[in-house]
């Protein structure tokens, strides 16, 4: 952080091990926040090029490698897009198994973020190790939750990271009823742990900040959307995945390798837990709805710092939903629908843990991919994260340098951005002049 006469600069330099980099810069001139820049390297860009010329059946496996935290999201959006292109509708048993796999990913991803990445911010801990030293039970609970999520992914997806059982049309193999039934006990425990998580995070102190977000999330008629639905927005959009793909315009910004997405090329927007909850809280099943009410959440949440509470509520939902799917499991037979390629364009959208993820592919009659477009949540959220940063910084200028920097970093973490998949650290430097 540097100070001149009336000037402060918060600079967070990103370093990535191999995969990519991100950095954060906020400039303050005479008590007014000026330029705010969150710069992100986005691996989906080269994956799009890599997909061209490959067979349509390869898209789920290749795109799952974009992210080690949410590979299922990439697989599910790829499958949805290819099935839309080929005009295939999978049966309910396959849909249910996909939803169970997706719940596993939500559980492991949300547990990771809530307990190990975000909670230390609120408790004055430098990191998860310090949190574990202070409250081992809490961290143990988070790790146990994450393990249960991984277990679901192993049983349904074949392994916890980059599942190998997903294919266009469904699965290579349906897990046995016995294997799926064995998930019930850990999921019961996880559901209780998720409820305890809501109580825990609801007790944190939150900055009194609200933002005027334009929310975008998937919505289904009869349930909280994860793996399908139409994209709705808080200002009235109601779009199919293809319509969403057509409406979202990404622009390249010279200072960054990331693309910035806008609705209609104009409006910035936010996807992710806050958007999902605020647009679909009425669709939450009773247990999760009661947990949300008990935590003091209204039907809409516009305080980005409370996103940790929303994630905890979604943990309850995901555990509860997974339990229901386990109890009603019937192996799909066959485990996958037959998908015959045709020359067409298809779009698919699903809800990754950190937000809406949509893919659009053009394939030919032989099933060869001609064009690929992958729009991850962080690309869609980047402009809004920068707006958050500007607002949070402006309202926090009375803080000391370290606290202000901490608050700005926290404002980024509120949205759990994928700085770069498999880029595991972001080093912070403070510059003074």
């Amino acid at each position, binding site marked *: 952080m540097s100070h001149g006469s009336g000037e402060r600069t918060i600079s*967070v330099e990103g370093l990535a091990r191999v995969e990519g980099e991100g950095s954060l810069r906020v400039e303050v001139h005479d008590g007014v926040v000026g330029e705010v820049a969150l710069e992100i390297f986005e691996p989906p860009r080269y994956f799009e090029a890599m997909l061209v010329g490959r067979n349509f059946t390869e898209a789920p496996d290749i795109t799952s*490698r974009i992210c080690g935290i949410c590979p299922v999201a990439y697989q599910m959006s790829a499958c949805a897009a290819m099935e839309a292109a080929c005009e295939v509708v999978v049966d309910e048993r396959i849909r249910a198994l996909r939803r169970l796999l997706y719940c596993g990913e939500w559980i492991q991803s949300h547990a990771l973020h809530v307990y190990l990445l975000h909670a230390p911010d609120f408790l004055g801990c430098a*990191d998860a190790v310090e949190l574990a030293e202070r409250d081992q039970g809490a961290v143990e609970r988070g790790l146990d939750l994450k393990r249960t999520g*991984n277990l679901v992914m192993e049983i349904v997806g074949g392994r916890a990271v980059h599942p190998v059982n997903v294919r266009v049309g469904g699965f290579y193999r349906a897990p046995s009823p016995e294997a799926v039934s064995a998930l019930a006990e850990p999921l019961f425990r996880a559901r209780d742990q998720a409820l305890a998580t809501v109580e825990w995070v609801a007790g944190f102190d939150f900055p009194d900040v609200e933002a005027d977000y334009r929310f975008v999330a998937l919505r289904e008629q009869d349930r909280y959307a994860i793996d399908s639905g139409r994209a709705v927005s808080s200002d009235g959009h109601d779009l199919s995945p293809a319509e969403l793909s057509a409406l979202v315009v990404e622009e390249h910004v010279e200072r960054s390798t990331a693309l910035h997405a806008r609705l209609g090329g104009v409006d910035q927007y936010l996807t992710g837990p806050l958007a999902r909850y605020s647009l679909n809280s009425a669709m939450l099943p009773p247990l999760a709805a009661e947990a949300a009410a008990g935590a003091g959440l209204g039907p809409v949440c516009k305080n980005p710092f409370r996103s940790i509470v929303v994630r905890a509520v979604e943990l309850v939902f995901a555990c509860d939903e997974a339990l229901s799917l386990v109890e009603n499991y019937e192996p799909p037979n066959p485990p996958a629908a037959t998908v015959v390629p045709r020359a067409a364009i298809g779009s698919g959208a699903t809800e990754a843990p950190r937000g809406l993820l949509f893919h659009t592919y053009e394939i030919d009659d032989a099933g060869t991919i001609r064009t690929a477009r992958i729009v991850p949540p962080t690309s869609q959220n980047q402009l809004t994260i920068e707006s958050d940063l500007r607002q949070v910084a402006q309202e926090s200028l009375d803080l000391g340098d370290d606290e202000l920097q901490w608050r700005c970093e926290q404002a980024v973490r509120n949205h759990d951005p*994928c700085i770069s998949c498999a880029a*595991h650290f972001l080093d912070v430097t403070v510059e003074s002049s």
Partner: protein
Amino acid sequence: MTGGGANPPSGSLVGSRPLRVVIASLGNEYRRDDGAGQVVAAAVAEQVSGVNHLGPQVDPLDLLGRWDGADLAIVVDATRGQGSPGAVRVVDLIDSTESPGATSTHGISLSGVLRLARVVGRAPARVVVVGIEGQDFGKGPGLSPAVNAALAAAVCKVVELIEEARKCA
């Protein structure tokens, strides 16, 4: 995943049970030499019986819960800036003090995961990192010639580590 056969060789008991050895790799096979760890770990699991192969890991945090109770955990990874391309380096993580990534938005480093595992009592007795110095971390699959040529040496080094641990057990 379990590689090789199920029964470890004799002389590798800890008390009355076999020495528990796990092997994992870190890295991304779509970033050229960053995928070296996966090749080495898979080869070791094929050659050495009784080794629990955890497979490729993208997030070191996923080792938590999977390496619990191990007497020896070997993590194979590509390195950068640690010597000439293909150089194999062994680092015993006896006293890891690295921050687990206080500012991370998305994960925790291997050293941080080890520290966390120790706090919650889930760390392996010993964690060794075997690093292979990479040359090309560009986009796409496939190893550089220098790293490809070093794979056999890296596999030998890991096998030696396991055999030594079993002799000492």
